[in-house]
């Protein structure tokens, strides 16, 4: 198992700076996800690790060795591309053989027609085919080995691309949005398969996605990137519960976190839109922003009007297991989404007014610059 360390990686195309000093220490065997909106530089970073792109500054180390001047083919990494990039003229078996052939066969043994005349060719090919067969069986694509990529479905191509990456037993897998060309149901299925694969291979995975759900479900740690910077690096739990700033909070979680204007009084007691939240921050009185995730909103108990926000329902979205209530806080245009159970919303009709309150301890406070402010534990 090999770790990867990035220190001070910068990349600019002309005057445009795409990466602004990335430092990441990826532990051996870790599943690290680079997640961020499109254009944040995550794919560029992955390609710099792969060696397909050269960084403007900074170092890439793989297993403690600086590889800045090592070309992609010598870094012993495998990559899965968004388009799968299978060779369309070769069968799946030949696609999966390619990395092994390029590593194990000599130039003359790879040569068309005369390659098979070399004495070791048959033995080498037999060994190589055994590996391909074994990998294909783990991925359950053994029956597809004779087909061309064009004859396969998206999910099958996805597996073939994974197979081609796996046969060589690389030190790390780099994946560039590998699931984004699949339909929604298959994507959810492949998420768990990839996580299983990572568990069984025990190899370092670096996974790039713009889909925060993929990042949350699969990674050991995730790095949220925005505009060429890593805003936060941490476990999915940390990122979700304690985002460093409003930007991360808004990016992670679906639907987006609700932001409500609030204030802290002289004692640091926080209120949001006039409703006290029973939480305190350090420091003096100031204006703040309060973030509450949709699933942390609930219907206020009857007759506790100053404990919640009056909320006018404009739209009710049925997800089967849950309902999303869209609407705004009464008398304002702050749009709010609440996630409630079917039982809770049974009586709620569109246009009606209800009272919502946060689950205790769930709101997150941000200062006016967007940075998160920690709450102070009350000594009670």
């Amino acid at each position, binding site marked *: 198992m090999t770790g990867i360390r990035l220190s001070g990686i910068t990349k600019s195309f002309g005057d445009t700076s795409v990466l602004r000093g990335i430092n990441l220490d990826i532990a051996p065997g870790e599943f690290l996800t680079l997640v961020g909106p499109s254009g944040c530089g995550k794919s560029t970073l992955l390609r710099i690790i792969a060696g*397909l792109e050269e960084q403007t500054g900074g170092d890439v180390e793989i297993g403690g060795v600086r590889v800045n001047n090592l070309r*992609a*083919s010598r870094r012993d990494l*495998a*990559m899965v591309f968004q388009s799968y990039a299978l*060779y*369309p003229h070769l069968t799946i078996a030949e696609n999966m053989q*390619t990395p092994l052939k*390029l590593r194990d066969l000599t130039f003359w043994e790879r040569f068309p027609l005369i390659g098979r005349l070399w004495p070791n060719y048959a033995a080498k090919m037999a060994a190589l085919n055994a590996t391909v067969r074994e990998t294909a069986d783990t991925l359950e694509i053994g029956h597809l080995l004779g087909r061309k990529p064009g004859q396969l479905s998206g999910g099958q191509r996805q597996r073939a691309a994974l197979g081609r990456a796996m046969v060589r037993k690389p030190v790390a897998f780099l994946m560039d949005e590998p699931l984004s060309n699949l339909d929604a149901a298959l994507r959810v299925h492949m998420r768990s398969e990839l996580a299983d694969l990572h568990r069984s291979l025990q190899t370092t995975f670096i996974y790039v996605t713009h889909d925060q759900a993929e990042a949350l479900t699969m990674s050991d740690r995730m790095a949220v990137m925005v505009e060429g910077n890593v805003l936060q690096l941490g476990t999915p739990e940390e990122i979700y519960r304690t985002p460093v700033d409003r930007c991360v909070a808004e990016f992670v979680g679906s639907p987006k976190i609700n932001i409500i204007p609030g204030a802290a009084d002289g004692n640091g007691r926080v209120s949001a839109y006039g409703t006290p939240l029973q939480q305190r921050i350090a420091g003096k009185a100031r204006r703040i922003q309060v973030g509450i995730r949709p699933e942390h909103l609930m219907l206020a108990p009857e007759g506790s009007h100053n404990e919640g926000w009056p909320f006018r329902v404009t739209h009710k979205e049925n997800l089967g297991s849950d309902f999303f209530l869209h609407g705004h806080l009464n008398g304002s245009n702050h749009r709010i989404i609440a996630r409630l159970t079917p039982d809770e919303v049974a009586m709620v009709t569109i246009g009606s007014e209800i009272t919502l309150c946060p689950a205790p301890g769930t709101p997150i406070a941000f200062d006016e610059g967007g940075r998160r402010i920690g709450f102070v534990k009350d000594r009670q």
Partner: protein
Amino acid sequence: MTARAPTHRTHRAGYWFVAPAIVLMVVILIVPILIAALLSFTDYSLGNPEISWVGFENYDRMVNRSTYTRMITATATYVLVVVPASILLGLGAALLINSVKRFNDLYKTIYFLPVMAALLAMAIVWEFSLHPSLGIVNKTLASGCGTAAESVLSFGWLPWVDAQASWYARGCERGFPLCFGNKDYAIWTICFIGIWQAFGFNMVLYLAGLTSVSRELYHAAEIDGATSAWDRFRLVTWPMLGPTTVFVVTITTIRSFQVFDTVEAITLGGPSKSTFVMMYAIYEKAIQQNLIGMGSAITVVFLTFVLLLTLGQRYLVERRVHYS
């Protein structure tokens, strides 16, 4: 009106819509070909009221008369030299131009110039350049005689070459060959002009093909361990250029079978029929000598070659080079 199966009426309307195209095709393509095929079995000539059926005599001549054997030899030589050479050069130039970042538009323009120029005019320019006494080529070659250039070009510096017996040394001694006047050289010189003219066109086709090769495939090849340019070419470039190659081979072959301008402008099929290519033979027999029957027979053979090529291309395109 609701949609329903086409009635007899709408069926007939369909035929009326395609009728003009069919009529035109029959009148200006199919009928002339059929007439040529029929005439190839006769001894017809223009203005001659008598016409008699000669059966396979015209075709028989093509196999047995030395003139026509030379016609086949000259045409085959031209096609077999110009097609591979201009395709390989075109591909090479396209790959090189594709790999440079600067000046590639300049290179493209330079290599494409011969394609844009009228071949007839260019043939005359080449005729002058290669003229035995006035031409710049032989003059330049001769001016090197007796100088350091001779010792280099006679390859005497290679241990296994006898400098006196080399091509250049003999040229200095007895004069350089007449490119178009010598039956051993004429067809090769015509081939050279053909390559010079055709490869720019092939280069442009290959450049267009190269732009459609996905960058991710090159990246995948690189990650898979394809370190050398040769490995990447074999794994990605060449297979992805398959459809382009089939097209380029077909179009170049058909164009090579059609070579006429250079022969008509420079050699007139000579010397001793060494450049008597098929198109020129049709022209000479049917137009100049008014042997329409014989000309038709050559035309039919020519059309057969082209038809076989086209069928071959269709087969390749459908079976081999389209991957999805």
